[in-house]
């Protein structure tokens, strides 16, 4: 039960870019085939609307570009979380639960504990914003550390444990904010309170950067970019990052070289969980209702796997991949609002297909080798045609 080394091994830049682009193209082709099959069974989609609201409107309307960047932010965090675990040979598919717990506890901190504590100096921007972020990081980190610890010390497979942690997270959230009868942190101010925390203190809310364009774009995107740079430095320039990569490539060799693999595994999963938790925290701090609602993260935690796969786990690749998936998310959002002829979930199918093709490097490898072969073959033919002397030789 170990990760395939294929995913961790560094590839040449050209190869990874080809693989990424090919898997996106293959996914688009597959979804077009699916739409054709739907049409065959008279389940007709309005393709014009799909192109109009799914693509053209996104790229031309500044509000939609801001929306795309808004979706990019959590994807950067969940993608980084998956990628950093990959570097140490671990597969963190608990991003969903870690995001949930991070968002939930930072919302509880900023909405219930601090404003209702009555201590005024704590309810200020300068105290509340950093502590809220920290709480999200720690909560997500603990949620990630448990599978890491169990993997390192008890040999429990981290994939299954993180799945269980995802399900546990849902139950924790249901207990804390899900019910009228027993939940301690359920929003009690509004009458139709429904599985959400109270609104967080205004001091903890992140203000929009360009209020006239979009209310959803805030500083967290740039924090995400800074985090990408920090993670890049951590992985490539520090002692810890070196050890992490050593464990990822060959944990037995790392162990015999004197690296404490158990500690590295636990810490990497904690860091990974913390980063995913930050994604949830910034969603709470920067989005309109300014509260944690059950299910607000959708499948963003799982989409991080797609981001990380497309980016081939390189930190800067994650920025580009997150932009692409941010585009898809905004596209789905826009279709959902503006038109009724196209189901927005088509774009989730596209995301899943991208994951499938990116996780199957052999398909794109075969296609690439076929293309190279065809290219060489044509070149030969062309040379033969243009240079008649060659044929005689």
């Amino acid at each position, binding site marked *: 039960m170990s990760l395939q080394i294929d995913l961790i091994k560094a590839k040449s830049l050209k190869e990874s870019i080809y693989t990424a682009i090919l898997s996106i193209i293959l996914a688009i082709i597959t979804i077009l085939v699916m739409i054709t099959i739907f049409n065959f069974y008279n389940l007709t989609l309005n393709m014009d609307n799909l192109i109009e609201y799914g693509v053209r409107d996104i790229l031309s309307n500044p509000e939609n570009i801001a929306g795309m960047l808004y979706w990019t932010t959590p994807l950067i965090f969940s993608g980084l979380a998956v990628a950093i675990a990959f570097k140490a040979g671990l597969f963190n598919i608990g991003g969903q639960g870690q995001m949930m717990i991070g968002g939930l506890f930072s919302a509880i901190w900023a909405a219930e504990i601090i404003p209702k504590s009555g201590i005024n100096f704590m309810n200020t921007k300068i105290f509340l914003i950093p502590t809220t972020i920290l709480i999200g990081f720690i909560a997500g980190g603990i949620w990630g550390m448990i599978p890491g610890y169990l993997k390192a010390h008890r040999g429990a497979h981290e994939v299954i444990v993180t799945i*269980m942690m995802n399900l546990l997270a849902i139950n924790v959230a249901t207990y804390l904010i899900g019910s009228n009868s027993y939940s301690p942190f359920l929003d009690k101010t509004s009458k139709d309170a429904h599985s959400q925390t109270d609104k967080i203190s205004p001091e903890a809310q992140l203000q929009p950067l360009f209020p006239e364009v979009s209310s959803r774009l805030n500083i967290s995107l740039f924090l995400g970019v800074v985090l990408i740079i920090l993670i890049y430095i951590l992985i490539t320039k520090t002692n810890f990052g070196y050890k992490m990569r050593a464990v990822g490539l060959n944990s037995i060799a790392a162990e015999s070289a004197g690296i404490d693999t158990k500690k590295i595994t636990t810490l990497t999963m904690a860091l990974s969980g913390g980063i995913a938790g930050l994604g949830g925290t910034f969603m709470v701090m920067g989005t309109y209702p300014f509260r944690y609602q059950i299910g607000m993260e959708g499948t963003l935690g*799982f989409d991080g796997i797609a981001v990380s796969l497309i980016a081939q786990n390189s930190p800067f690749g994650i920025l580009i991949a997150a932009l692409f998936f941010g585009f898809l998310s905004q596209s789905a959002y826009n279709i959902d609002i503006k038109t009724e002829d196209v189901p927005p979930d088509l774009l989730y199918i596209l995301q899943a*297909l991208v994951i499938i093709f990116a996780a199957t490097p052999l398909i794109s490898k075969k296609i690439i080798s076929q293309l190279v072969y065809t290219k060489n073959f044509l070149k030969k033919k062309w040379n033969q045609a243009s240079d008649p002397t060659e044929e005689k030789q």
Partner: protein
Amino acid sequence: MTINNLKELQLKSKLGKLLKIPVIGPILKLMIILEVIVLFPYILNIFFYGVIYPIPYHRQMWSLLLSTFVFEQTLRAAIPILLTAMGGTFNERAGVINIGLEGIMLVGAWVGVYTAIITGDPWFAALMAMIAGGILGLIHGILSITFKAEQITVGVAINLFALGLVKVLSELVWQAQYSPQLDPEYKFQRLYLLKKPILGNILKYFTFSNYYTVPVIGPFLMKLPDIVTALSNQHILILIALGLIPILHILLFKTSIGLRIRVIGENPQAAATAGIAVKRYQFFAVILSGVLAGLGGATLSIGNNSSFKENMIGGRGFIAIAALIFGNWTIIGAATASLFFGLFIALNINFNSAVDHFYVPKPFIQMIPYLATIFALSGFIGKSRPPKSIGKPYDPSED
């Protein structure tokens, strides 16, 4: 070694001897497990309400545990999990890990309802759900066996794919995220075998309620769940699923096909050396798993319920994976674990109404299967060992 430790050992050995007695042993084991199940909520309740009188609590809990309707609900809640978990056992025994069972169940549930609405024939609907599950299993197989993809990632992708597909299809077909309510004729109805003319008369002799008036054993039987009545009130898919347990157990552990599948999961290279067509058996296992998961989804949508909702699986596919781990990768183990998880679902419905002063919030009871799985995987409860080559694609060029 201190005296205390020695005493403990003695106690353990006495208990161990008791547990080895043929008939009383298993019953005693079951009673100990059930007592743990009874005690755990009691301890939780201390945090939420306070200490309550243990004797009435015990009486109410045990009568709830051994009541016929809880047994009935347990079966109904457990069967979708059980079918999927048994399929997943085959899958993992062949060395392929499938996280996508949740998605396959979802598609199975959708296809079941859709076909039932179109054709009005639940049997045909169940068949189509199985075929749809099989196709998804085949896709998983092609990607992870033929193309050697990362199996876990493909599983996650299949979950997302299934969720998206089901939402799109519901939107296109029903213009909503849920299906219309099925006509009762179109779904698997409960059988109520005891009310059938001839069979009912025969079955009546096997029910406990027939002997309640008998002097000595009557009052005793009254305290036990009436198994035959509970079974005869279920719909047919549940009985089929229960019948599949021994069949699949024999297939995996008593036939050459099963032996080959298990060898492949442990060491595919050795299996290939012995002349076994590794990939063919892996495909068989993966498709069988998909078929069973599809049927599990259909059980939920056209058996237990009569409509489709996009969140109707609600993690049951993951609980099935938990069950097969808890069952230590055996069919009987997976089935037992599924039944226990089903028992928790059934108890959770009835706890608050049946037991006085019981205020443990429902999420805490729901957490128990997941926590138990984490403990089992970490080696705190029993020992669970996965097949050795699980998750690794078979590559003939490796040695």
